[in-house]
């Protein structure tokens, strides 16, 4: 009993100094406000983000699998071919428009892909936050399986990596079904600059 | 007379380094507002004109100009003045450190 009290006494200052996850969320909801098209509610966490935050983006493998399976269920895979127009896809990949509080409602959003990824060799202005996607289709082909993976990954990246830093571009309402198809083509079409 | 100017003139090996900061909107034909930009900058060393620059709309707002004047000595009086397309002007004087 004495050991337990002692251990608790040692732990107490550490516990008190660190704010609880719920307290942190409450502070966010209190200190942020709706502006433009972005609602205050966006600063509250859904279940998966709460878990990712608490586990420093490294949840235990078993838990990650459950979370990923859940996220996979949210993806409405279209019927038929998932390949759109790579020329439109390139514009979507280059565009960083949309979803901020200064963006007007109703304007087409971009995918901001080049912010984080290398894609076509000719474009040197690319970020390195995500892996390079150079020659993506050349390396993996453009069969139905690969198309499905790419579509799913763009719609909801967390279905494949629970705490991915990549936004859930379809699920969040950023990109339309057609836009994601066009990005699939940009990555997989042999004629796309990504695969030259 | 508009916003402040700031100038630093320091003696280096064989030349005087002059840095001038100017406050000016430098509104160009690219904007919807009336043109308002610096057209000329004059530099005087101990009262004698040493630089007369014709500035155009290509220069950005709040320009920073750096010059190197041949020779010079500590205590030299450097004066930099500008004149814009509206006839407004400003000037600043400093001694070479």
């Amino acid at each position: 009993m004495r050991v337990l009290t002692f251990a608790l006494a040692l732990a107490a200052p550490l516990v008190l100094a660190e704010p609880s996850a719920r307290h942190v969320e409450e502070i966010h909801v209190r200190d942020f406000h709706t502006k433009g098209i972005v609602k205050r509610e966006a600063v509250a966490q859904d279940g998966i983000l709460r878990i990712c935050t608490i586990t420093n983006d490294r949840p235990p493998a078993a838990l990650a699998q459950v979370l990923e399976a859940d996220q996979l269920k949210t993806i409405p895979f279209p019927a038929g071919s998932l390949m759109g127009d790579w020329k439109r896809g390139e514009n979507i990949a280059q565009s960083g428009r949309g979803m901020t509080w200064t963006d007007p409602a109703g304007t087409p959003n971009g995918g901001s892909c080049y912010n984080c990824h290398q894609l076509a060799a000719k474009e040197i202005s690319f970020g390195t936050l995500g892996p390079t996607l150079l020659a993506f289709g050349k390396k993996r082909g453009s069969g139905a399986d690969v198309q499905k993976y790419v579509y799913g990954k763009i719609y909801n990246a967390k279905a494949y990596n629970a705490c991915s830093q990549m936004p859930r571009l379809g699920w969040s309402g950023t990109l339309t079904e057609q836009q994601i198809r066009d990005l699939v083509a940009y990555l997989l079409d042999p004629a796309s600059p990504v695969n030259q | 007379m508009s916003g402040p100017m700031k100038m630093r003139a320091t003696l280096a090996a064989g030349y005087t380094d002059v840095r001038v900061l100017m406050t000016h909107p430098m509104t160009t034909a690219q904007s919807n507002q009336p043109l308002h930009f610096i057209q000329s900058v004059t530099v005087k060393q101990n009262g004698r004109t040493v630089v007369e620059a014709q500035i155009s709309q290509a220069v950005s707002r709040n320009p920073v100009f750096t010059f190197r004047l041949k020779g010079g000595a500590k205590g030299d009086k450097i004066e930099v003045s500008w004149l814009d397309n509206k006839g407004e002007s400003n000037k600043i004087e400093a001694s070479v450190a």
Partner: protein
Amino acid sequence: MRLLVSLVCALPLAAFAQDAKKEIEKYQQMLGEGSPAELWEVQGEELWKKPQGPKKASLERCDLGLGPGKVAGAYARLPRYFKDTDKVQDLESRLVTCMTELQGRSPKEATQRVFGNADRPAEMEYLVAYIVGQSRGHKMAVPNSHPKERAAYELGKKVFFYRAGTWDFSCASCHGETDKRIRMQDLPVLSEREGAQKAYTTWPAYRVSNSQLKTMQWRINDCYRQMRYPEPEFASEATIALTHFMAVTANGAPYRGPGTKR
């Protein structure tokens, strides 16, 4: 002839990107040697001394942590706990306190227009430039001993790693790993000493592309905008805690601001 042209045009992209990085560094060095930010400092000093508000008083008795009117080195010791307001405050919230207490201005009026634009900078931006300029060369020594300072530090750390918003981002999503960049903009790791020291000591800054002096509250505000979050309240507990966390992490380095950025 055509063969020669195509050989010349086939520059290795890696070399091209490296040249771009060198040019960017050269540009940044040039900016550091003579910056319009100094013009904001001059005007800020005038505003600091200008009698304003119902009490027709200047800000010259404002206590920024080192005693009334003591400005030299004050920014290098902010944010910090203040007894009179019983909370941790950053520079901007402290200036608002002084505007209301010393000058008798209403909090609403003092915070009405804290972010200006190129045609009309905000009073806050001039004042901030002046105060931070007076800490140029001073070693960062942000206090972290009072219980409320420690609480702000811990909260700030949690805010840094908190994942939310339409795109699931935390500050760490971009500023969490070394040698990463977004497009061509290098991203310092702000939660660790080296990155925090590099970044924190050159903000607030004059942004050449905007022709404006941008404050720390603005920098945090615009980060959240790009993160697809809703807007944070000006000088809210969350933003001050975040600032305190980064500032303490930057301790030991000489403050070099105000900076000049792209």
